[in-house]
């Protein structure tokens, strides 16, 4: 259930942590590029900006971003009324939060293994 009382950042974060898998690859370098790829494209979609999706890798980030952006617009309707700059600020905070939870603050010792 979506808790509308939570802060905006927490709502967006909780949605990713409950519903998405792209942020949980098994190594630090992999999580860095996943978070960067998908959250950047999500921000671009929410702001109506063009998104690169020519390479297979970019297209794969884009599909996750489309579903995330659509879910945000459907479940957190306040985002539809936000100004572009405010969306960018919020998405930057979201990226920092997801990076903390899945990379810098993660207690998963396997992340640091240099090989797959």
């Amino acid at each position, binding site marked *: *259930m979506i808790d509308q009382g939570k802060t905006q950042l927490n709502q967006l974060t909780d949605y990713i*942590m*409950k*519903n998405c*898998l*792209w942020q*949980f*690859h*098994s190594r630090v370098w*992999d999580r860095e590029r996943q978070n960067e790829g998908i959250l950047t494209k999500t921000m671009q979609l929410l702001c109506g900006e063009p998104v690169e999706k020519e390479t*297979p*890798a970019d*297209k*794969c980030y*884009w*599909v*996750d971003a*489309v*579903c995330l952006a659509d879910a945000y617009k459907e479940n957190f309707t306040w985002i539809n009324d936000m100004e572009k700059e405010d969306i960018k600020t919020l998405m930057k905070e979201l990226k920092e939060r997801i990076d*903390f*939870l*899945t990379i810098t*603050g*993660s*207690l*998963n*010792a*396997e992340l640091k293994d240099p090989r*797959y």
Partner: protein
Amino acid sequence: MPHHLFKCSECIPEREKHAVIKGEGEDLSDALPLGYLNTIPGTISERGCAYCGAKHVIGTPMKDVIHMSHGPIGCTYDTWQTKRYISDNDNFQIKNTFATDVKEKHIVFGAEKVLRDNIKEAFKAFPNIKRMTIYQTCGTALIGDDIEAVAKDVMEEMPDVDIFVCNSPGFAGPSQSGGHHKINIGWVNNKVGTYEPEITSDYVINYVGEYNIQGDQEVMQDYFKRMGIQILSTFTGNGSYDNLRGMHLAHLNVLECARSAEYICNELRQRYGIPRLDIDGFGFKALADSLRKIGLFFGIEDRAQAIIDEEVARWKPELDWYKERLKGKKVCLWPGGSKLWHWAHAIHEEMGVEVVSVYTKFGHQGDMEKGIARCESGALAIDDPNELESLEAMRTLKPDVIFTGKRPGEFAKKVGVPYLNAHAYHNGPYKGFEGWVRFARDIYNAIYSPVHQLALVDITKDEIADTNFLTQNLISDKDLSEEVKNSTTLREYTGNYDSVSQFRTKEYPEFERTKKAANS
């Protein structure tokens, strides 16, 4: 998220770091159980060995292959017909199992000759099967039998056969997971790129980490075929050896069980540039999102949406019938590796159950991250559980049902808690929209079975007439509103006993090719 030490584990204090309780408002940076460490001797762990992970989980679902264990008969026997990875070639790989039956004298004098003889005998007995996988076991690993050399000799003598050697003896890792890793890397190193299957579509995927348990792969394959997508290979449920040699030709790796098969996806990404898309085949929302993402990748999202709309319209009223009756029921989600995160959020949201505990037998910390992120606060998360801790957890948490394997399920039944087989299902498949309803039905049948009341009746003393026998509906509906009880839209499951065989004779639409690959 405090660590939790079971009373029965006070004599093994290191177990405290393997269990946490998810606190309100806490997140993954607060605590995470340790994972994928060596099993503590004497704990009565639920784990299996690395041979099991390689052979039984990943290797043997390949359907057109002779799977030969090079070792004592017990290794083979105990991994025969104990997992329901069916196939559409009359279950060749379930009906038949092969072993070199290594005895004490072979351990002393070497077993390479008996291996060579058995390989030839097996190919002669099944002349239509030209592919073989050979699995090392503890004994033959310790004596240093060079299985690869023997296989190479046989392939030179018999040029129409191909053999894959899997060096994953039981001791090669802390659990089954060690075996998963070995066979993933072994396959991508030795076999991927050695064959080029025919390309029949503009949209080509490898379906990875899917083992066709009770027909899961065939359910998903039906959706993909309806979208015009070619599953070049499935790693490995209902999968073909030669198609799996052609994994390098796919446009996209669709990954279900990241625990057992993310390794090969990661290597295919590094070596061939094929992207990895993690999906969930369980749950209406997660599955709809997954189909949509695959559709978007290929620019055919309208085809995905048509399937989603049709399936949801057909099956949602039945899922909701069970949800009304399962709300608030307590569940322990105790699978092997990945279902703790595939199912935790979906069963809570879509069936209304409360997940009071999750565990993973052989998962890594990454699986715990996903599982704890997806479960609600208050849940007890356990890594590498054992029998005594499980019993203590059941006495404390008092779940209404447990989803776990059939071995821990038996001791759950002995303390009066019903269980459902999370590994191989009761009446699956559980993937897909219809499958999710089948799962809800099994949960309903487990919780509301009249046997729970009848089993308490002592027929030597109690009058049968006084038992006040209640049917399932009487038990499940007693607190429901009249509106729900009399609903004309909600209904119980109306599918068939066998929901899978239909796919094997089904006709699919032809889609025009816009581009032809070099080898199609």
